[in-house]
């Protein structure tokens, strides 16, 4: 065989392996989604949205967990997003080239991928241990700390995309910096900022680990923020690990709900982000 045909054969084999790995990867992910849809839809019914989490052996739903998840996610975003927005604003507007910004960006990138369970331990130390009991406040705070890095990152990126000419035009008209940021830059980057917010919600709505020992769980319906509160991921964890069939099928229903929510949020973020881009 000539050298050329050996090289061609080697290339064909390597490219075949690449196609194979793409098929393998997509197949694995399709299998997961398939199992999720199959098991999720077969356990999904109206009771899931209307009834409380049941004791073993009884029928019930996930209402308290769904409400708990919504409350803690909204609170977490309400606390974390403004902080992230302001920090990102500083990095893109006031201190774009400062050393502080470089340092914050580096630390923020690490926090972005840091193990969420460690954030849970941190919040446990500063809230649960001080207050003496688990509470929805602690859970919301843990989620807020996970929201911050996501929002910081997207805010900085989006504000950096706002054309400098817009700011210069406003400066020429005599507007002060803070007004330029709030009325020009934020407005120009609005779609991007909302995208970041949606991504942050998607990120925390599936988080389980930091809630395990902050908000704990609650078998009953509760809107008391100073008491333990149920959340979908924690209930899924508890029910899936249990030996009871009813609980396991509720876990699948919950898993389907969370995945749907996360996918809808990220697709929404994507559509919004594609609408308005500055280049």
């Amino acid at each position: 065989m000539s050298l050329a045909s050996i090289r061609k054969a080697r290339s064909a084999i390597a490219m075949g392996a690449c196609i194979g790995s793409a098929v393998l990867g997509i197949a694995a992910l399709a299998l997961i989604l398939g199992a999720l849809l199959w098991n999720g839809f077969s356990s999904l019914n109206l009771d899931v949205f209307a009834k409380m989490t049941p004791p073993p052996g009884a029928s019930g739903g996930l209402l308290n967990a769904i409400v708990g998840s919504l409350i803690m996610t909204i609170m977490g975003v309400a606390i974390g997003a403004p902080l992230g927005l302001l920090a990102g604003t500083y990095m893109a507007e006031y201190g774009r080239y400062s050393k502080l910004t470089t340092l914050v960006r580096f630390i923020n990138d690490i926090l972005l991928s840091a193990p969420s369970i460690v954030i849970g331990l941190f919040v446990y130390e500063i809230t649960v241990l001080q207050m003496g009991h688990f509470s929805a406040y602690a859970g919301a705070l843990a989620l807020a700390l996970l929201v911050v890095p996501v929002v910081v990152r997207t805010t900085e990126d989006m504000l950096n995309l706002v054309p400098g000419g817009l700011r210069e035009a406003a400066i020429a008209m005599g507007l002060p910096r803070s007004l330029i940021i709030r009325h020009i830059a934020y407005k120009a980057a609005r779609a991007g900022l909302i995208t970041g917010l949606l991504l942050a919600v998607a990120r925390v709505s599936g988080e389980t680990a930091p809630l395990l020992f902050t908000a704990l769980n609650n078998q009953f319906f509760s809107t008391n923020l100073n008491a333990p509160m149920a959340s979908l991921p924690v209930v899924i964890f508890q029910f899936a690990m249990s030996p009871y069939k009813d609980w396991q099928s509720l876990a699948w229903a919950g898993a389907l709900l969370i995945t749907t929510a996360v996918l809808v949020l990220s697709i929404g973020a994507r559509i919004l982000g594609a609408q308005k881009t500055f280049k």
Partner: protein
Amino acid sequence: MSDSTASLVGDARTRALKRFNLGDRAFHLITKSAAVAVLLLLGGVIASLIHGSAPALSEFGFGFLTSEAWNPVTEKFGAAPAIYGTLLTSFIALLIAAPVGFGIAVFLTEICPFPLRRPIGIAIELLAGIPSIIYGIWGMFVLAPVLQATLQPWLIAGFADIPILNDLFAGPPYGIGIFTASIILSIMILPLIASISRDVFATVPTVLKEAAFGVGCTRWEVVRRIVMPYTGAGLVGGVMLALGRALGETMAVTFVIGNAHKIHASILGPGTTISATIANEFTEADGVLYTSSLIALGLVLFVITFIVLAASRLMLARLKRQEGR
């Protein structure tokens, strides 16, 4: 215009300017303190972990890292099995996910027909966002029984006569264990590696590739000799980022690891990881030493992931600078 109205207008002007100035300074200060708060957040996490783990670390000293004991009754705790499990599962996961992820990235940048590139790329990015608990529940109910019935007995029988490997794949097939956890982890980090590698591959100037094709390189030679060397730092950075995720991953692993504080030679046996131990035992831990030992585990995990993630960010930043030049 009389002098008095002129000075009145001047006064209003000065006052407005003053107000602008004040508001500007306040906003500057507020945003700056928010940026500093991000730094304080990291500092607070580290300080609280050190504070919380102090009782355990002063009781066991450095022996905590090497001891295999984990006995809540006699209050003897050691991190070795958890650290071993964390490192081993992540290592095996990378061994599987890195080549497959690179393969997907090459497929997306070199082979895939253009109309399909965007949809497949978006699908992969969306899958990277699926919560880890979903992977965990799938691993426990679907993957573990399948592995127990098929792959694991086959591995045990197949390597039974080969030294070293027969220790690595020793029986019985539990279904859950280090091996299953590694596979789940590899599927989880696959979209991450694939999408970062694809982005990194896209930074290679087309001229370089065309030149290589021009002198008669095959497609594989272009990938191997041009694309990969050009993007080396970025690829390593992406893999390390995925490693950082895998090390700290909690829920996907907790479902299928088996939670056994033992170091087995066989990777088919049950084990534990740092995050799985914390997730499983923290709320049930009673006694200062038990809780403190779990927080000390968290500190170890944080230190390991911090180093890995910092290295990964530095490498990715280097590629960005190179690109900007």
